[in-house]
């Protein structure tokens, strides 16, 4: 009898201790995550400028569907998503396999070099890219000197090339980040598997598609979901390199939210609605990615 009593009290004690640790995080999460999210949801049902807000029900949501600027922003964002994310993931996979080669010398140097872009400040690198790709910038000067083009390419002021510039910039910045995930996963693959494959006569590409890719599947899923989320929230690069222009050619959804809140006349209600559209899109895309690529225990 005495024994059970003490065990209960120990259990209660440990539960209490556990909660006192978790409580801190729980309070912080409620105050800084759930409360603002709820506030934003409430805000998304209000319209008006600045502090003159009135409840207008689903007005903002119906406005969303007929808003050309919003639709353009969504289109642009999805162009980045469909072109850049696959490009980056294939590139990261390719580089990581090369860097994982046991015969490669100066591995540390190459890994650092490719990872280095990920630790640079978003704004700083964007500004550097803006100058590199300016009309009389380094890229154009080089292309002209090498006689690859006859006239400078309007990287930033032409709608098509501006998108390409943004894609080049985000690929440069994020490929190394994804590469690190693949590299760590590759190091967990037992080299004896490859050895066995080689003995059976499998070519390098057969090994890559038959062993490496299937074994990296969970990591590929993870990186594609995080990259998707990152791209849907793309802001810094576009804001600093092209400001969304020319016209709305490079504007992303996040930048549209910024414009609605601060560039135009402080329409925070509608900006919150647009923010929630991103939440919905991310949720839907993540579900789809899980269904397509994930397995049951993944």
């Amino acid at each position, binding site marked *: 009898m005495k024994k059970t009593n003490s065990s209960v009290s120990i259990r209660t004690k440990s539960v209490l*201790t556990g909660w*006192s*640790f978790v*409580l*801190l995080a729980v*309070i*912080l999460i409620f*105050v800084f995550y759930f409360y603002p999210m709820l506030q934003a949801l409430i805000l998304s049902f209000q*319209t008006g*400028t*600045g*502090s*003159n807000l009135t409840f207008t029900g689903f007005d903002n949501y119906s*406005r969303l569907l*007929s*808003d*050309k*600027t919003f639709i*353009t922003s969504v289109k642009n964002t999805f162009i980045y998503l469909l072109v850049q994310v696959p490009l980056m993931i294939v590139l990261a996979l390719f580089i990581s396999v090369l860097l994982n080669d046991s015969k490669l010398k100066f591995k540390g140097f190459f890994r650092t070099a490719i990872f280095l872009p990920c630790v640079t400040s978003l704004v700083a690198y964007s500004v550097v890219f*803006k100058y590199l790709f*300016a*009309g009389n910038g380094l890229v154009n000067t080089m292309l002209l000197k090498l006689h690859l083009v006859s006239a400078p390419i*309007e990287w*930033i*002021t032409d*709608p098509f090339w501006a998108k390409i510039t943004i894609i080049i910039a985000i690929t440069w910045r994020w490929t190394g980040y994804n590469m690190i995930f693949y590299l760590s996963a590759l190091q967990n693959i037992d080299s004896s598997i490859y050895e066995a494959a080689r003995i059976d006569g499998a070519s390098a590409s057969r090994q890559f598609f038959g062993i490496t890719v299937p074994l990296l599947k969970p990591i590929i899923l993870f990186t594609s979901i995080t990259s998707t989320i990152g791209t849907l929230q793309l802001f810094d690069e576009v804001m600093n390199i*092209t*400001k*969304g*222009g*020319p*016209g*709305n*050619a490079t504007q992303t959804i996040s930048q549209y939210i910024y*414009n609605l*809140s*601060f*560039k*135009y*006349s*402080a329409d*925070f209600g509608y900006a919150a609605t647009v923010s929630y559209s991103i939440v919905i899109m991310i949720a839907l895309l993540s579900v789809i990615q899980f269904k397509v690529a994930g397995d049951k225990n993944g």
Partner: protein
Amino acid sequence: MKKGIALLLICLLMLTACSSNSNSNSGSKNTGNAAADTGTAGNSATTAPAQAKEITIWAWDPAFNIAALEVAKAEYAKTNPDVKINIVEYAQNDIIQKLNTGLNSGTTKGLPNIVLIEDYRSQSFLQSYKDSFYDLSSSIKGSDFADYKAGPTSLDGKQYGIPFDSGVTGLYVRTDYLEQAGYKLADLQDIDWNKYIEIGKAVKEKTGKALITLDPNDLGLIRMMIQSAGEWYLKEDGKTPNIAGNAPLKEAFEIYKGLTDSNVANVHADWSQFVAALNSGDVASVPTGNWITPSITAEASQSGKWAIAPLPKLTANESVHASNLGGSSWYVMNVDGKETAADFMAKTFGSNVEMYQKLLTDIGVIGTFKAAAGGEAYGQANEFFGGQKVVSDFAAWTEQIPSVNYGINTYAIEDILIVEMQNYLNGKDIDSVLSDAQAQAESQIK
């Protein structure tokens, strides 16, 4: 032991969480920017209820607005040595963000006493946050300033802003390029934009230089053109979009296309590239606000090569050779210390003719205070511009600027127009360009 640490952590958290609610604390919990120092203005109010001892001002551009504030600060210190004035420099975009978030949060903490707001945006703030700005009707008279400044700085018959710099425009030209092309400055005195393009073609042919530099993301040129004809993106009520059927706007679009089609325009992407294009001698002219003067004169090697002609006009009969681009005004926030702030503004920018002479000679600020234009500094010749009395020219043009109601949606509509402008340049018909823009503006502006 572990429990003890946990408890300590929780206590710490509670303490920091609570302290943000207390209003007596003036030290560590500040938001991290210098502006939070305004808290002290509230503190001193307890000892001296009528007059605050300290006020904070937010502005952008150290070479222009901040420099002007420093002059005003020194001027005010002569009569009020006990008032401490903090001048805080932020980029204009940062001020807009800080103001919007501050005013929206419902707390006046962290807001300045005086803030500089661009005229295009001022109504958006005045109307969106009523009661957040202090009525200055008893401190200054709106009619003492250039007429076109009345629209942006007042609301419902009350004067909220102290009109500051003039955004009066001129056509800055390289006279050496003009001469090579067979023109003189006198040929630019009473021209319309079509003639301007014609001259540009000759300049391009003879010198290889572009006539003008354009940023596809900035329709400042269009704004200047339509204001010169007394029109705006909105009707006079400041609410109804005025795009389809707006004859000056249509003509402005056609001129813009004319500039790009005739291959006389250079393209730039941002401010630094803009200034670089001027200073490197790549372009022969810039139609823009007078605030560009310091940037142009910064390239001392081009002294004597520049001159300033009146802005070309539209063929629409309403159009004049004067317009406005940019320009901003001071606003006093309705927070503790507002009386002191209003007093500071009234005694400096609101009345001090002598100070305006100093602003002009030292910094190059052309104010909009009417009485100041009579001062001697306004009549001086400028050697950089070949001895031209540029300031008295600008002052004369300032009086002709047609007054329009900018409303609260200038930049929202402009973003719609920027897209439609691209469509127009790519061959879309002008009337459908304008009617599509009208439809989109109507659905977006409510």
